[in-house]
């Protein structure tokens, strides 16, 4: 394995050959990818050096020190966080070469076409149909809760290629060209007034077989890699400094506005503060486990806790704000590129946090997963086991 100094040297050598100030941003990033200095733990030839994940910070620090153009971390989160690991695990060599660079540089944004109106928690029951005509697949169906779809060049698509077998068995995974005919993206407005998400209507959209990821009928396995990455990302992303999360604005308001303080609100604040900090410590412990190469099952807990705490804290903030909580900042229908809890009113935080226990897997499904996969509790009696998808009651 490479040592930190070796990585540092490679970056310096690269910078000696590529003047950050001279090159265009995209050219520079492309070259950095090609030099294996994008995500150093990826294989050589695919933006990496096969190095330890921990050395990424070393490379990044060198580039930062040279004032080199970097990637925009807010751009293409699904591409980098979910598409890339999935393509790395299941894509063909050609697919990896074709897509990974654009994903890392952010040149091509990706979205995820999994959920459907009739298949949310029961994702494997999805109905979007992909039928082969020999050369390519003809896809018809409706996807929902697709963030970034209006910005995306590609979508990670899970579709049904065989309705005649058990629901998990009939799925296949594709990369869907979002600019292809038959792909229509419509904003989906949520209760905050914004439309962060989209509905995607697929009407006889054609996908060449070369854009299929993984074998026909093994889409469920590939999709699970994507979902696992999603959860790892969520777990990884939550470790900020003390008070950096939803508790931040509340603690700030408490300190700045003594007139809002009451004895009853005080104990609840302290309880929430404690929970938020303990959750942060648990996130840190998880991060240390990952860094030590021993990922624990605690990752499944992170999103669950994140959702519950965001909801409890923002609800508390409303009671603290009292009269101010009765106001909203803006009901205008907007399409934010990225949602943030901060810089908005307490009432926005309260409303937006309600979605945290629904989006990306409901808290109920996460509890099922913990109970069955972590604790080994028996599954409930299944009524869809061994039944061909087409014969399931709907």
């Amino acid at each position, binding site marked *: 394995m490479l040592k930190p100094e070796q990585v540092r040297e490679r970056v310096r050598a690269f910078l000696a050959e590529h003047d950050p100030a001279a090159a265009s941003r995209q050219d520079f990033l492309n070259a950095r990818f090609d030099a294996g200095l994008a995500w150093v733990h990826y294989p050589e030839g695919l933006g990496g050096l096969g190095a330890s994940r921990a050395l990424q910070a070393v490379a990044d620090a060198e580039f930062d020190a040279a004032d080199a153009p970097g990637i925009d971390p807010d751009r293409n989160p699904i591409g980098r966080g979910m598409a890339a690991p999935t393509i790395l695990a299941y894509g063909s060599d050609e697919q990896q070469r074709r897509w990974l660079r654009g994903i890392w540089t952010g040149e091509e944004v990706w979205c995820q076409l999994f959920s459907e109106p009739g298949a949310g928690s*029961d994702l494997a029951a999805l109905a979007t149909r992909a039928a082969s005509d020999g050369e390519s697949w003809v896809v018809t169906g409706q996807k929902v809760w697709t963030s970034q779809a209006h910005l995306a060049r590609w979508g990670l698509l899970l579709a049904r290629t065989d309705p005649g077998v058990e629901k998990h068995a009939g799925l296949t995974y594709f990369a869907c060209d979002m600019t292809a005919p038959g792909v229509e993206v419509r904003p989906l407005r949520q*209760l905050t007034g914004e439309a962060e998400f989209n509905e995607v209507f697929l009407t006889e959209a054609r996908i060449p077989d070369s854009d299929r990821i993984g074998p026909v009928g093994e889409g469920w396995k590939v999709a699970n890699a994507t979902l696992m990455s999603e959860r790892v990302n969520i777990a990884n992303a939550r470790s900020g400094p003390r008070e950096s999360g939803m508790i931040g604005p509340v603690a700030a308001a408490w300190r700045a506005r003594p007139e809002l303080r009451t004895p009853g609100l005080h104990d609840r604040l302290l309880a929430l503060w404690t929970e938020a900090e303990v959750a942060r410590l648990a996130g840190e412990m998880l991060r240390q486990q990952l860094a030590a190469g021993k990922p624990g099952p605690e990752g499944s807990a992170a999103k669950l806790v994140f959702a519950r705490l965001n909801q409890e804290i923002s609800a508390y903030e*409303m009671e603290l704000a009292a009269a101010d909580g*009765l106001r909203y900042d*803006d009901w205008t229908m907007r399409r934010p590129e990225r949602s943030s809890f901060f810089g908005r009113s307490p009432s926005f935080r309260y409303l937006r946090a309600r979605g945290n226990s629904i989006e990306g897997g409901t808290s109920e499904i996460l509890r099922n997963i913990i109970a069955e996969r972590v604790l080994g509790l028996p599954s409930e009696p299944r009524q869809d086991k061994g039944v061909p998808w087409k014969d399931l009651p709907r």
Partner: protein
Amino acid sequence: MSEVGERLAAGAQAEGFPDLLYSDAERALADALRSLLGDRAAPATVLARTESAQTYDDGLWQALAADLGLAGLLIPERDGGAGASYREAAAAAETLGSFAAPVPYLGSAVVATAALLAAGAPVRGGLGPPPQAAPSAQPAQPAEPAGSSPRASTEAADLLRKMADGGVTVALAVPFATQPAPRGPAFPATVRLAGPRHGDTDSGVSRLRGTVTGVADALPAGLLLVPADGVPECLYLVDMAADGVSKAPLASLDMTRQLCDLWFDDAPGTLVASGQAAKRAVTAALAAGAAILAAEQVGLAQRCLDMTVSYARERRQFARPIGSFQALKHRMADLWVEIALARAAARYAAACLSSGDPDAPVAVAMAKAYCSQVAVHAAQECVQLHGGIGFTWEHPAHLYLKRAKADSLALGTPDAHRAALAGLVNLPGP
């Protein structure tokens, strides 16, 4: 006390216990209201209204006033109202709450009406003693009060008569967040008297100056009851259309009851009550508002549970109705239990207000504290158990979520009402 003793005491006490059940009249009123709202306040209609320029539904309010007498429910029959009690008012509020109906029932037919009734004008014959002459050091004085009492009395009675059929809608100009006294402000006034304007000849007209923020049900109001600071404190009637009165609608969490800010810039006001009578009027108004809001919260919570149950019976995942999953069933069962408790609390508060029971302050504080939490819990579960669809703008769940959360902050938060209880039931803080 032994458990035998308890049982005996319970029996003894039960005889004088307020009736918590719904009367036939209350049930009939609720049924009629439900039928009317079913036609005119379907979720899609209510949602569309929140996105329109006029967020209050005037037509609906007129229909409720004309067909069901809702505008004058609490107004004595001799003044053209239905002469009903807070019990019926609560039953109506429950049904209105179950539709999140965008009408100024709470503000006009309950809060403002309670203020006018408690001011004593029509019911107790007069506004009480005229305000005392204030020390001259005060920057602004009430307009000459002498002789204003009989006129105000007549005016208040006239006003109730006009309100009874919905012809006039009135709002009490205090922030919607205001908790009733004793823990809330003794007199929630942010407006002061200004000196008379050059050319003012009517000695019964005073000039008001100040701002009131976040007022409920004032947008559709024709008249405002404005508490004004001074010695003594006074309650004035102000025409919304008068010079010097302006209003600005707010982006409100609950757009089915949109708040507004009010500005008074030497606005002309007529005295309605002063001193103790004014304080009594405002306190009674806010207490009635809190009690009736608790009933509204019960209706809202029940609607959320009903929606959730029926969705859970229909929606299938994993080849089963999601309502057959035990974790979800238990949560809905818990909600049902909470609502049963909340209903008892709200019924008791309305009953105590109706009969002038001395336990009324305890009953109101308990009801508002408890029902607020239950309504919010029900609305949150409604969104959650609907899954993705419950998080969309198109689905009505958010109308209930927003109203529930706003209502929980209105007229005193649960925390504030519990703090009020501390004094009322002798559980003092450290």
